[in-house]
């Protein structure tokens, strides 16, 4: 497609339409302006649309619309490839497509009916309360022990507002380490709470925020010295850190999830073999997770 050249521009307010045509006849875009104005008749006055035509003849031009929703909202760019549309239908098609784009962006229902409403009240003004369940496979790097723990986590998430997501996960992880002094196995059960500032774009959700983690670690070990034998120890731990999640929705219900979390222990637990710290939940750590979610 040929890059759009701003030969013709229409500055359109919901009620007050301005028009400029620096390099084209003054009536080059009037018909398109009128059609777009009809489609945006119910748009708030804060919506401004600048149309750029590729050529002076609107019937033979692709259209790019820059839609400004006011100082607090990012603008939209709507590029319409009209090559497959027959010439007589191009302007109407462009106007309808721009109208649909503005309507979708405003997140509101269509303009109110002019006759008695027989349909249910639309949900658009309500804050969506997205609730879902999810499961992860996780790997955690225990920095202080230079070992990996593998495990699973099951949980749920709720989004009370479009920009905030709260997640709760219950997980279990296991790590093992063999050293000259013996072998040790660490089982960790934990509960994780995270609040994430959320960015959403179509099927994508990206969240970032603080995370707190509490749990119980149980170490079971055996010394290579037969006189010492086997033993076990347990302890509570508390961790705090930062968690990021990326979610991609395949459909209205099914989601793929990836997470990364970096944290440090506020209260740690370390298992010793022959009086040497061998494996534990302490210090810095990072957890990677891949999983699936299901929206309820």
């Amino acid at each position, binding site marked *: 497609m040929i890059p759009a050249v701003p030969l013709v521009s229409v500055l359109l307010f919901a009620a007050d339409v301005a028009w400029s045509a620096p390099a084209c006849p003054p009536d080059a875009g009037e018909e398109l302006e009128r059609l777009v104005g009809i489609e945006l008749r119910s748009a708030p006055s804060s919506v401004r649309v600048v149309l750029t035509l590729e050529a002076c003849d609107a019937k033979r031009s692709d259209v790019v619309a820059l839609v400004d929703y006011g100082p607090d909202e990012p603008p939209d760019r709507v590029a*319409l*490839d*009209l090559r*497959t*549309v*027959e010439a*007589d*239908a191009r302007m*109407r*098609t*462009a106007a*309808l*497509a721009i109208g*649909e*784009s503005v309507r*979708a962006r405003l*997140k509101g229902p*269509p*303009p109110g*009916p*002019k*006759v*008695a*409403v*027989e*349909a*249910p009240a*639309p*949900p*658009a003004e*309500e804050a*969506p309360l997205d609730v879902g369940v999810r499961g992860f496979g996780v790997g955690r790097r225990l920095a202080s022990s230079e070992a990996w723990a593998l495990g699973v986590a099951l949980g749920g998430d709720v989004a009370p507002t479009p920009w905030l997501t709260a997640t709760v996960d219950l997980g279990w992880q296991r790590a093992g380490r063999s050293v000259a002094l013996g072998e040790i196995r660490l089982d960790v059960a934990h509960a994780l709470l995270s609040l994430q500032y959320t960015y*959403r774009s*179509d*099927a*994508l959700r990206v969240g970032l925020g603080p995370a707190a983690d509490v749990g119980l670690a149980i170490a079971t070990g055996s010394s290579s010295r037969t006189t010492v034998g086997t033993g076990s120890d347990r302890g509570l731990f508390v961790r705090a850190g930062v968690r990021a999640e990326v979610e991609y*929705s*395949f*459909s*209205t219900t099914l989601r793929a999830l990836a997470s990364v979390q970096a944290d440090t222990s506020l209260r740690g637990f370390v298992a010793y073999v022959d009086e040497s710290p061998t494996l534990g939940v302490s210090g810095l750590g990072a957890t990677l997770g891949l999983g699936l979610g299901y929206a309820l």
Partner: protein
Amino acid sequence: MKLLSAILAQQPPHPQGGLAAFMLGTVELDDLAHPRRALTAFDEAIARRVPKPLLEDAHARRVEAFYRAEDYAGAKAAADAYFERYPTGRRAALVRRWSKKR
């Protein structure tokens, strides 16, 4: 309305029948609150090859029409059809909202 209906009734089919059906659907849904009639119109718009820049909107509008007709199962099925065709579509957020039963 009469003009749009006349275009849709033309034989042989009018070359802009898909566009007329889409416009009829928006009027039925937005201005007259007739979601079932709107649904029929959007189905016809798709069947009659509405111009490509409006095709995704026609699929998205089907979800809204089902919802407004209180046919939530239909809305979910229409949303699944939308996401199958447009997994990262421009109207995904709106479709997701309309496909949820309140």
